[in-house]
């Protein structure tokens, strides 16, 4: 009996956080869900509309594609970057860390307006391409421009979990692989890469799920013809005041995200918020 009591009191420190979570997340989420399936009678019409209105599915597909592109780009940029961070001295590592974190510390608006200036017609990017003879590179107002700006913001979410994972890999393993007959390339792909998979998974999940919900960047840098799902949600809530339809869309995005996270947990070890990751090893080990 007494051990039960101790178990109960052990949960007490969680109460404030749980209360907050319930108040600001679970209750509104429940309300949104209820509204999405009532008309006011129970109905799935709002969900049916998502598949039949001809817009939602296109936007969802475009959003997923954008998020996937951002994720791949962030991984390609972030992996070598994080690797370098594990190989340099503490000073250089500090500088690299600051550089990757700058987008974190910049206001969303400042950052996006900066991108507008950089990407706009006649801006530095376009001029640079003109110089090497490539004309009419239009990035402002396109999905490509949005993807570039999103990749910059998402880079820390890729680099940080990768850095913590790559830094924990024993370098002796690479020497061992070399001694056992692997070329440097083979040693990387057969030993280093598999051991970094947990960090890759954590970074990919973070970047992909966060990328699904971008609003300001596509609103400012993209075009209304190529809007992403967050814009669609905003439109339905603030312009059309169709909370039921918006709720249904929100629920779909939420379910997609949860399914992905569950899948990643199953495949890639334990994915925690900022990528402290159990790598490659059997799960039953404590």
């Amino acid at each position: 009996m007494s051990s039960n009591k101790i178990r109960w009191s052990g949960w007490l420190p969680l109460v404030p956080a749980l209360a907050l979570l319930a108040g600001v997340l679970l209750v509104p989420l429940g309300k949104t869900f209820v509204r999405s399936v009532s008309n006011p009678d129970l109905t799935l019409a709002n969900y049916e509309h998502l598949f039949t209105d001809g817009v939602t599915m296109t936007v969802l597909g475009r959003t997923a594609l954008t998020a996937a592109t951002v994720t791949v780009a962030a991984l390609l940029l972030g992996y070598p970057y994080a690797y370098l961070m594990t190989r340099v001295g503490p000073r250089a590592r500090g500088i690299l860390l600051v550089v990757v974190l700058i987008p974190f510390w910049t206001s969303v608006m400042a950052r996006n307006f900066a991108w507008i200036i950089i990407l706009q017609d006649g801006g530095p990017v376009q001029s640079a391409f003109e110089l090497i003879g490539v004309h009419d590179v239009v990035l402002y107002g396109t999905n490509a421009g949005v993807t570039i700006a999103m990749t910059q913001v998402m880079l820390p979410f890729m680099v940080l979990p990768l850095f913590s994972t790559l830094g924990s890999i024993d370098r002796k393993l690479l020497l061992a692989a070399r001694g056992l007959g692997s070329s440097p390339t083979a040693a990387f792909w057969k030993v280093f890469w598999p051991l970094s998979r947990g960090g890759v998974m954590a970074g990919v999940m973070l970047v992909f799920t966060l990328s699904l919900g971008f609003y300001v960047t596509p609103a400012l840098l993209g075009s209304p013809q190529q809007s992403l799902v967050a814009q669609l949600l905003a439109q339905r809530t603030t312009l059309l005041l169709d909370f039921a339809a918006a709720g249904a869309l929100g629920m779909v995005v939420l379910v997609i995200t949860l399914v992905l996270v569950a899948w990643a947990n199953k495949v890639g070890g334990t994915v925690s918020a900022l990528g402290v990751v159990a790598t490659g090893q059997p799960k039953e080990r404590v």
Partner: protein
Amino acid sequence: MTRQTTVEATGSRLGTGLGTEIRLEGVTKDYGLAAPAVDDISLTIEPGEFMTLLGPSGSGKTTTLNLIAGFETLTEGTISLDGADVSAVPPHRRNLGMLFQNYALFPHMTVAQNVAYPLRERKVPKPEIARKVAEVLELVQLTGRDDTHPSRLSGGQQQRVALARAIVFEPKALLLDEPLGALDRNLRAALQTEIRRIHREVGSTFVFVTHDQEEAMNLADRIALFNNGRIEQVGTPQQLYAAPETLFTARFLGDSNVFELGAVGTGGTVAWEGESWGVDPETVAAHPGVRAAGAIVVRPEDVEVAGSRDAVPVGANAVRASVRDVEYMGSYRTLLLTVGERGLLGRARVSALRGEYAIGDEVVLWWRPRAQRIVAA
């Protein structure tokens, strides 16, 4: 009988039976620090030999091993395997097995996958891989643990897996970098025996780095003693213990009483604090440094303790001492002594049967001239 047949059977399949000669000539590794990490070393390791690189930390022994493995590049000199210069060959083409202190097993692979790794890298056909992995796991006594992950094994078992992985591809030689350093004492002893047995069975050349003189003495056919990036002395454990060339060697291997002398002449006696001691010419080290500055080294087990000068036999070398402390070691005891006018610390090992000694007792130490060794100081 059965034992011998397994040895022969395993030896014929796993080992090549012949080791590789490793020759280092003028090997130098300079990181651009005050002194080179390895300074102009020449050493020939015979085929099938168990060579131990012994020395204090920072003496260059591990750097030397890494140079042989190819993990470090030479500043100067050459390294050849069976006469072929491999100085510029990358590590994965040198075909040498390597054992690390922290095992360096691949955590994302099972025991069998770890052991199969070097075979897969060599594109060995699958059935042969399976056969060799089973064979070598039997050799290291880990049969049946194929599908276990290394993290679920004990330290000793992990090092056995690493050993299996390092020898399964029949490397030209096995390089061992303090492989037992992380293990506790009993396990170390057991694995030392194991490593000796495997060395006998596979017949390959082993190069073993350690800072533990006891381990080196137990394992090695020959020891190369390192000091400050140079080799101080090479020889069998017995040679290094009984006939050290320098004071460093004498002090590094075992306890000793050291009497520092000035220049050692060609005469039949040497002087130390007014004592005149006989010299057996055979006990003078060949090292040229002896002429400039020598030291007499006497092992504690070679020192006798007498109550007075009258009890010292004619022809023995003697010195006055007082008992500082007595350490009881069971069948014998070690007397810690204050020797001579300057109060040098001395040690004598006496049988437990030989009377009692109390702290403060005035005694005379004596030994035969042929029990002492005159080395370069």
